[in-house]
């Protein structure tokens, strides 16, 4: 079956199978920022936006994307880089494998929440697992990026 989607601002037509998930469709289409970390929709690594809202692309049927606008990290490079600068300045991109899904969620949060508290940030991002960093450095980076109160790093 053929689907027409708006991928990062460009109309594309992709052939998909009936039970194919968007993560696999997009990766096969060369969208390599999408990574998968689980088989049970638990890790958040595969997060993309459908109609500007974050979704788990590993659990989103490609057929359902018909006619929709899909945004991946490739389509947000400038913004992603601006945030990644903070992440990298903290050293909190360790293996980096969780970063694309994490950044997609952070950028969605930025659009949704104004001046979020620590609790709100943590709540928004709970579905994004990271096994390397222990999350704290990511929080420091987010706060610096959003310009909310600077966290004094203790060493």
């Amino acid at each position, binding site marked *: 079956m053929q689907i027409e989607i708006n991928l990062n601002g460009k109309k594309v037509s992709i052939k998909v199978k009936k039970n194919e998930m968007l993560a696999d469709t997009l990766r096969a289409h060369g969208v*390599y*920022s*999408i*990574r998968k*970390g*689980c*088989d*049970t929709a*638990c*890790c958040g*690594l595969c997060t993309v936006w459908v109609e500007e809202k974050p979704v788990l692309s590993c659990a989103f049927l490609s057929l359902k994307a018909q006619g929709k606008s899909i945004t*991946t*990290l*490739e389509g947000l*490079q400038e913004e*992603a*880089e601006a945030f*990644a*600068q903070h*992440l*990298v*300045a*903290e*050293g*909190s*991109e*360790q*293996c*980096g*494998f*969780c*970063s*694309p899904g994490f*950044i997609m969620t952070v950028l969605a949060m930025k659009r949704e929440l104004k001046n979020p508290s620590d609790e709100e940030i*943590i*709540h928004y*991002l*709970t579905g*994004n*697992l*990271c*096994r*390397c*960093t*222990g*999350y*704290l*450095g990511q*929080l420091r980076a987010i706060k610096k990026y959003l310009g909310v109160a600077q966290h004094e*790093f*203790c*060493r």
Partner: protein
Amino acid sequence: MNFVGKSIPKIDGMAIATGKPVYTEDLAPANALVVKLLRSPHAFARIRSIDVSKASKLKGIACVLTYKDVPRARFTLAGQSYPEPSPYDRLILDEIVRYVGDEVAIVAAADEETAEKAMKLIKVDYEVFEPVLDYEKAIDHRAVVHSESDLHCNFDIGMQKDRNIASSQKVEVGNVEEELQKCAVVVEETCYTKAQAHCMMETYRAFSYLDHTGRLVVVSSTQIPFHVRRQLARALNTPASRIRVIKPRIGGGFGGKQTGAVEMFAAIVTLRTGKPAKIIYDRKETFTATNSRHAMRLKVRLGADSEGFIRVVDIEGLSDTGAYGEHASTTFGVVGEKTLPLYNKTRAVRFMGNVVYTNKMPAGAFRGYGATQGTFALETAVNKLAEELNMDPAALRLKNLIKVGETTLVSEGKTLGSSTLHQCIEKGQALIGWKEKYPRQATGSSKVRGLGMAVTMQGSGIANIDTASAEIRLNDDGSYTLLIGSTDMGTGSDTILNQMAAEVLDTSVDTIIVHAADTDISPYDPGSYASSTTYVTGMAVVKAAEDLRRQIVESGARFMNAALEEVDFDGQTLSTLDGEKSISLQKIAELQVLGFGGSRQLVGYATHGSSVSPPPFIAGFAEVEVDQETGKIELVDYVAVIDCGTVINPNLAAIQAEGGLVQGIGMAMYEDVRHDAWGRMMTDSFMEYKIPTRKDIGSIKVVFEECFEPTGPFGAKSIGEVVINTPPPAIAHAVYNAVGVRVTDLPITPEKVFLKMQKPGHHR
């Protein structure tokens, strides 16, 4: 120092953070065959017959391989220097399957769907055996996990395979039983640690192809390219010189990728078909068919005199290596090696016990490598001893812990070169509010807060075994290329090695190209494990850079006709001290690389190994809040004060520490590998196996208490592993102080705490 001690951003940071295609799967050729594995549904069985005829005929199938199609030489997947202490007890595919998930057949197809279809068409008839599932009953069990006669050990590790004993060990200095008699207080505690899953976010994966000379190239998400090359050579019966292993960016390892997993399956398909092949494990396979931490039972006895000096440390252990013996003897040995030296006022110490085979997924290397298990047991016992002695546990430690310049019963006369552990304890006490809050504080509601602590040591590389080489070239344009074989798995080791070279050469980090790791190009390095990269590879880099610096100075002096003592090199220009003459680095490079007659490209080279493995130390402090009505535990605060020698890159070290602490918190409170009665692992997804989320951690403070390790590069020791060790015992201690319940089998769950609080005799 211009670079050492600075939080330089990681050289690959922006690429990996912004989703660039730099990981194994991103690099695989589009036409690679998809490799899938048919796995055993039984914990222990023999394949009576296997029929692949239907599967092989399917359109799009490239090959289906069974145990009849693979070489017969047994090998180990453990990533260890040759001769590996792990037994050669496995084949690529075996007639006997030894755990639920053990590989039965390899299927390679043009696409995933066809491969899956083919797997369903394979008919296997199993002769099912009674499995050995409970490791406490493995010794002398009716069933013998490894009865094959061609199992091979490179040296004596105390194996008695007929009794399911993979390794048996004993170290005793002094007479433990006699000294215990003389002690005023003796405590005993038996602790259980679980088979923790690594849960690196990038699952195991590799792809392979034949290059233009017909050599096998394997690109793998691995910590151990050189060991994988050797494993493949043996497993595939192919000379190592015909194999090349490349490590791209990898999505986490934590020791899991110190054991080969998938490489051999892709490689054999490529060798048989001549075609590129890729294999990507899903999360379930990663949970159930790779490796985990060794589950252990450790019984500790401590004896102290009436003044509170610890005179005896005695640890007796049992470790579950599962179906194969990867890292069996060595992880177990480390339990003793990283516990017995800590408290050095002892008169007798002993570590002994067995590692057993069972019919479960094999264990392997996991960050901490036995020290984590040992620390939980030892520190739990030390906390209990403090209570018996009626001493503050911090004071007991300050009185008994080893200091710089001292020896221990097990250190063969070698003295400790560096430590700030005593300061770490004092600083940690201040930061957690020990004086005000220890041991407990009521909150007014049903909740009580408790404080707990633990200390730990690890090593820095493996003494007398780990040997790394480094090469650094001066390129024709005056830039440098640093070649190393260590394997940055996200830790930032490529960056800190770059910092060290830049420091020696007085240059900036971006004038150095860092290349790692490729067995065709990189100098030999065992890989990144055993907390070795900063300390061992780091020293090799420093020596190589010094070697090159010396050559640069010699070369420049020669071109200027100046004496060596009369010149100075500032990293860019070599000048005579009187300022008369100078020559730029670029010019030296140009003349050396491009010049005719007598010149040669300048290359610094060094090989380094260390005869000691200096321990980094941590003092860890936990504050928990326990609900007395439900047993619910909340980690409120965690403080870790770390001595890793000189901190080469503070930000990267802090993230290593925070990440390791959270992994330790996971082990302490959530992570619980469970099997059903038939040996099937039930915790095979993130739904069943809970790793900490952002919500599960309270405040965590990481503080460095630096010192200078004389044998380390710029005074550095290691950081990667030691960070995971303190949370389990510190949190157990805090829970005990809050509600009087001592949980000695991990994880420390609300259910366990609640049930123990209901027991008669429980007070507080």
